[in-house]
């Protein structure tokens, strides 16, 4: 059978004509909503069709399609349709016999969308199992659904009179993602059968020893190995020494293990900058701070899947944030879903396994209002990307039952072709489970999902630049998630952990089994029988099995005496667990298939053989004049515009789609206040039912600061992440940080130079604040090539903070609470508007990037936290994008009460004439500043606590709902009703 029976519409055949030769040889059930009930998916699609500028469609309806085995009797199919697939109240089911065309209502244009053969389809698997297990087929209840091949598809019916071109546009730009799905418009043909995989084969060798440099480079590019010439030469040298050619399996293993994604070659390599030779940027900046700070509460840093810090009696917290940029660019939904799925597995596989208790997410995308013609070829519109990644995180995180509590969205032109997706997970882990080991003789047990061709070359794909054909050539790099599989793995894993049935574990992430087994066996050795790995469908080559990034898999090291009990634990949760080999003491990695050795590698060469070339780095600050801070004609209008600008406007439409209540642990939620519409600085959870200890989670980034001054950006972003946790009650002395760098191509000296400056900024700030980094991840090569032009993303550092909250009953929210309370401004305002929202609104570039005063800021955080523990603080909000004006407006609209503030109260140093006084005070984004609500009777003790820092009573919470701000000359510069503020704040893109 061809892979796709009918991929192109047949223009000569009228739609609906009942003589399709290629109707699938399977029962077809299409389930539509009855006409008397609205079809929310259809309504939603129609709105999106309008957004595409297509007015000819009057109605869209979605039919959920199923293909069932032709061997079923009609009665059985009717029962399956009536009792399982369709709802008796809401739905009507159309059943069509094998090989027959379906009967279709007149006057509709049909578009069928089906997953490409071999693409993971969890609904089809669930349906097959449900049919088998509920006795819908001839009364038998079978556990084995293997014989029941089920496929699913979507049947869209468009009413009205769209042209062929319009139907094509709708299908391609809205309904289908052609990376993973086939579109069938004007045909009823659908693929039904087993996917075609590459022919299985035994050991294959690659002629490498005599290859020229050009041939080596060609081999690397053709195989998507992402190895540079130096690395290819090192491999060639190694095999010349061995006097044999490498096998395909060996070459793939080396490519995966040496990939930028797994090895962090840039961060761990040699860099020359301004005459200085940096040997391992990570160890000499970020990790160095951790080691020099040497906090006894850091339980595990940098070497495991996630960082671990001490939490409470007997319990620790693990935290990891991952990037999943390239997969999200070509399939936003699947890419973001598997991104969060992957970082959850990191937490499940840290130490001996942690229970995930919170998720975080951050997206960096292009402008929502980007004209369609400005979307580069091969790229989706930023709206589609954002909607897709939000839905991906939503559907994975919600299904896993993990609250998504903290995050952010940043908008910038620089992310149009290369969006960034960060996903993080916090885990709770018993104190005695922080370390893992592997002993020779332990069984290599793979648990979870089956292995297929999905996600081949994910690790190496993420290390090459995207180009306008990425969508098509990289289809295999996309993985589809199955969160319920992962949930089952988690349920079984925690039981097995608590019974101490295994002693080592890691997740299958980038590089699949090759990375997981290779890492676990690094210090002893391992032997793997690839033919034992359970497959989704036959026909995979050994190297495909070995490097597949099929999702929801983990690898355990199980002592042989525990194997039987371990298998039983997984079987009880319906999770496949399969021994595929064992760990050895040979220091070699041996791969076999059907008794034949298909690869044999020396662990030391595999892990330490990567050449370390010296790269050049330089930095030249952009030559831009300082625009100062021009005055605003109308501060009220300016403030409203800022509240509605993309980076500031409410993200409630995203927050509400995430379950932030599951597990019942959230104490400070993402949206707070009288109407629960105020943006919280951070989130606080109370993970242990019988303890008052909590954890505050915050994050920060900037897309603009880094272009101007990467070093200042790093310090400012760390300061903001700290502000976010301190503002909600987190202890700055017990705060751990995570770094995530997303950068352009670091083979370019100026990109690498920016990276060096940012990493050094991280070191300075971490040392000053006493906040160690415990984990991190870098994603380099975020570049996009269109024709001859290479576009690089803005240097982006995403910092996450995890702080202990000593007593969650002292946690603080940002909404003002009581009239007549004092509003105090804490922290120094400087003329720092470089990269600010205010200048961006005016189209001005340049200026001084905010930079914290590292000599004073740490003490300010400590003192503010101390005041909170004394109960002096009723509300607290940090000043960030949009400065004082935006912070005041947000606190006010969240609390449903106005404020009377007076800028003349602020004592400040003289600024150059180019800095308008009112505008600078209102919109500067200087670091380490807060607005704090203090009840009048506690003003003195609060100010005493903050001794040595700017701590000014700026005004009071009003009795009315008006925000009034007096300028330095005494006149009102802002006078706005709460409803106006709220409307502006909620005026942004709403999904």
């Amino acid at each position, binding site marked *: 059978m061809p892979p796709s029976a009918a991929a192109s519409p047949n223009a000569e055949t009228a739609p609906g004509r009942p003589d399709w030769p290629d109707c699938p040889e399977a029962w077809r059930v299409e389930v539509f909503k009855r006409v008397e009930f609205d079809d929310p998916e259809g309504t939603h699609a129609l709105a999106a069709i309008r957004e595409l500028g297509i007015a000819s469609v009057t109605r869209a309806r979605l039919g959920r399609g199923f293909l069932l085995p032709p061997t079923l009797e009609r009665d059985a199919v009717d029962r399956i349709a009536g009792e399982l697939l369709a709802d008796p109240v809401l739905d009507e089911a159309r059943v069509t016999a094998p090989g027959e065309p379906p009967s279709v209502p007149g006057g509709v244009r049909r578009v069928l969308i089906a997953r490409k053969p071999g693409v993971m389809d969890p609904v089809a698997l669930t349906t097959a199992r449900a049919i088998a297990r509920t006795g819908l087929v001839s009364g038998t209840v079978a556990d084995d659904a293997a014989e029941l091949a089920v496929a699913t598809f979507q049947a869209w019916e468009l009413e009205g009179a769209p042209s062929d071109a319009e139907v094509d546009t709708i299908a391609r730009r809205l309904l289908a993602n052609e990376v993973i799905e086939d579109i069938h418009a004007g045909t009823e043909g659908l693929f039904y059968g087993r996917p075609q995989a590459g022919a299985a084969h035994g050991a294959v060798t690659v002629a490498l020893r005599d290859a020229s440099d050009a041939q080596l480079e060609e081999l690397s590019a053709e195989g998507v190995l992402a190895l540079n010439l130096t690395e290819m030469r090192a491999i060639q040298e190694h095999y010349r020494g061995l006097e044999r050619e490498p096998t395909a399996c060996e070459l793939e293993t080396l490519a995966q293990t040496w990939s930028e994604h797994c090895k962090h070659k840039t961060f761990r390599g040699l860099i020359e900058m301004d005459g200085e030779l940096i040997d391992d940027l990570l160890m000499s900046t970020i990790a160095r701070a951790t080691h020099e700070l040497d906090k006894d509460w850091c339980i595990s840093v940098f070497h495991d899947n996630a960082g671990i810090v001490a939490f409470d009696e007997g319990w620790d917290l693990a935290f990891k944030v991952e990037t999943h940029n390239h997969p999200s660019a070509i399939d936003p939904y699947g890419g973001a879903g598997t991104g969060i799925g992957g970082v959850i597995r990191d937490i499940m596989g840290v130490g001996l396994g942690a229970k995930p208790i919170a998720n975080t997410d951050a997206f960096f995308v292009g402008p929502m209002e980007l004209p369609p013609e400005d979307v580069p070829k091969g790229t989706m519109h930023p709206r589609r990307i954002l909607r897709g990644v939000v839905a991906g995180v939503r559907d994975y995180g919600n299904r896993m039952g993990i609250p998504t509590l903290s995050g952010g969205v940043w908008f910038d032109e620089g992310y149009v072709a290369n969006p960034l997706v960060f996903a993080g997970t916090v885990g709770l882990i018993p104190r005695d489970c922080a370390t893992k080991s592997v002993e020779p003789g332990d069984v290599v047990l793979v648990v979870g999902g089956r292995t297929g061709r999905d996600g081949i070359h994910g690790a190496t794909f993420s290390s090459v630049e995207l180009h306008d054909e990425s969508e098509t050539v990289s289809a295999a790099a996309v993985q589809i998630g199955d969160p319920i599989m992962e949930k089952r793995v988690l349920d079984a894993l925690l039981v097995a952990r608590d019974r101490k049935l295994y002693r080592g574990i890691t997740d299958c992430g980038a590089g699949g089994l090759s990375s997981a087994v290779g890492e676990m066996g690094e210090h002893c050795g391992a032997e793997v029988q690839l033919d034992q790995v359970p497959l989704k469908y036959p026909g995979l080559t050994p190297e495909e099995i070995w490097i597949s990034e099929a999702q929801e898999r983990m690898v355990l090291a199980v002592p042989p005496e525990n194997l039987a009990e371990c298998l039983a634990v997984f079987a009880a949760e319906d999770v496949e667990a399969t021994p595929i080999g064992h760990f050895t003491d040979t220091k070699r990695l041996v791969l076999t298939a059907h008794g034949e050795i298909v690869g044999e590698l020396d662990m030391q060469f595999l892990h330490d053989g990567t050449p370390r070339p010296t790269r050049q780095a330089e930095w030249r600050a952009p030559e831009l004049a300082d625009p100062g801070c021009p005055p605003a004609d109308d501060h009220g209008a300016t403030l409203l515009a800022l509240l509605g600008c993309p980076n500031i406007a409410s993200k409630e439409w995203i927050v509400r789609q995430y379950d932030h209540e599951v597990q019942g642990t959230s104490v400070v939620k993402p949206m707070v206040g009288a109407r629960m519409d105020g943006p919280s600085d951070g989130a606080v959870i*109370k993970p242990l039912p019988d303890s008052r200890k909590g954890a505050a989670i915050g994050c920060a980034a900037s897309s603009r600061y880094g272009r101007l001054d990467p070093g200042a950006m790093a310090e400012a972003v760390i300061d903001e992440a700290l502000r976010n946790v301190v503002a909600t009650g987190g202890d700055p002395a017990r705060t751990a940080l995570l770094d995530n760098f997303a950068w352009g191509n670091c083979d370019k000296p100026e990109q690498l130079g920016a990276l060096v400056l940012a990493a050094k900024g991280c070191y300075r700030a971490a040392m000053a604040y006493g906040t160690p980094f415990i984990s991190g991840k870098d994603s380099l090569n975020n570049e996009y090539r269109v024709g001859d032009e290479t576009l690089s993303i803005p240097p982006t550092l995403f910092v996450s903070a995890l702080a202990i909250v000593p007593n969650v009953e002292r946690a603080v929210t940002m909404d003002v609470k009581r009239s007549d309370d004092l509003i105090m401004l804490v922290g120094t305002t400087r003329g720092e508007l470089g990269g600010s929202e205010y200048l961006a609104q005016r189209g001005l570039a340049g200026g001084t990037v905010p930079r914290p005063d590292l000599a004073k800021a740490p003490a300010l955080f400590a003192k503010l936290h101390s005041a909170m523990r004394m109960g002096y603080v009723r509300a607290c909000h940090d000043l960030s994008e949009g400065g004082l004006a935006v912070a005041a407006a947000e606190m006010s609209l969240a609390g449903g009460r106005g404020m009377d503030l007076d800028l003349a109260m602020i004592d400040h140093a003289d600024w150059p004439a180019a800095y308008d006084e009112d505008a600078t005070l209102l919109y500067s984004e200087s670091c380490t500043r807060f607005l704090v609500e203090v009840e009048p009777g506690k003003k003195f003790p609060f100010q005493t606590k903050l001794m040595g820092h700017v701590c000014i009573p700026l005004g009071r919470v009003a009795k009315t709902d008006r925000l009034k701000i007096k300028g330095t000359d005494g006149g009102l510069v802002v006078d706005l009703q709460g409803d106006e503020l709220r409307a502006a704040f909620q005026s942004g893109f709403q999904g």
Partner: protein
Amino acid sequence: MSQPKALVLRSAGTNCEDETGRALTLAGARTDILHFRRLVADPGRLADYRIVVVPGGFSFGDDIAAGRVWGAELRAHLAREMRAFVAGGGLVLGVCNGFQVLLEAGLFEPDRRPEERSIALYENASNHYECRWIHLETQDTVCPWLVPGERFPVPVAHAEGRFVVRDDSTLKRLIEGRQVALTYVNEDGSPPEYPADPNGSVHHIAGICDPTGRVLGLMPHPERNISPLNHPQWTRLPKREEGEGLAFYRRMVETATAAPV
């Protein structure tokens, strides 16, 4: 009075079993959490319990439709046992996905065949998953452990919670049979609009019971309002001793205790 035993069932994709178990324990029950396949293997275990709860989550990924697959499995394997449990005075609660499951399993209309079902839960009018706090009001109901007229805050978190009926006579039958147990209201008790009614349910129905009152299903999550710190506005509210959801579970446990075995 002996402490009643409560059974929290779970399946692949259940994710609220821990907080539901905790709420029941705090409310005074001895609580077990059990994978439903183990109950299918040994249905006699039901006799040990006075309360069965099907908690929230995404059973089987909500594939096909929310609660569809687990509901079909319960119907296929435990229908007789569950009916006998209710007839014997046992209490059954389904929360969120558990409500969807009980509805699919046919527990609210025990005399009807699957294709005759007259009530359904489907996609929210907003067409997306939604997590927010709302207010519930208890109606005049046959459910023996709810107090009519009571109003309390709880969170909702679902994508398919819109309660609909086959026809007007179904709604009439539910109201007259006092099966409409809980409705969405504004905080002051007035009729809600979106988002106070988060999904667009007919009659703003958030929860219903079976004709006996001993089977209750609701979309919102009372077990997520147990501690005073669960409430999204606790930093601006007067100090409270406990979340309102705890009283909901406590009365259920008390009723189970008082019921004759």
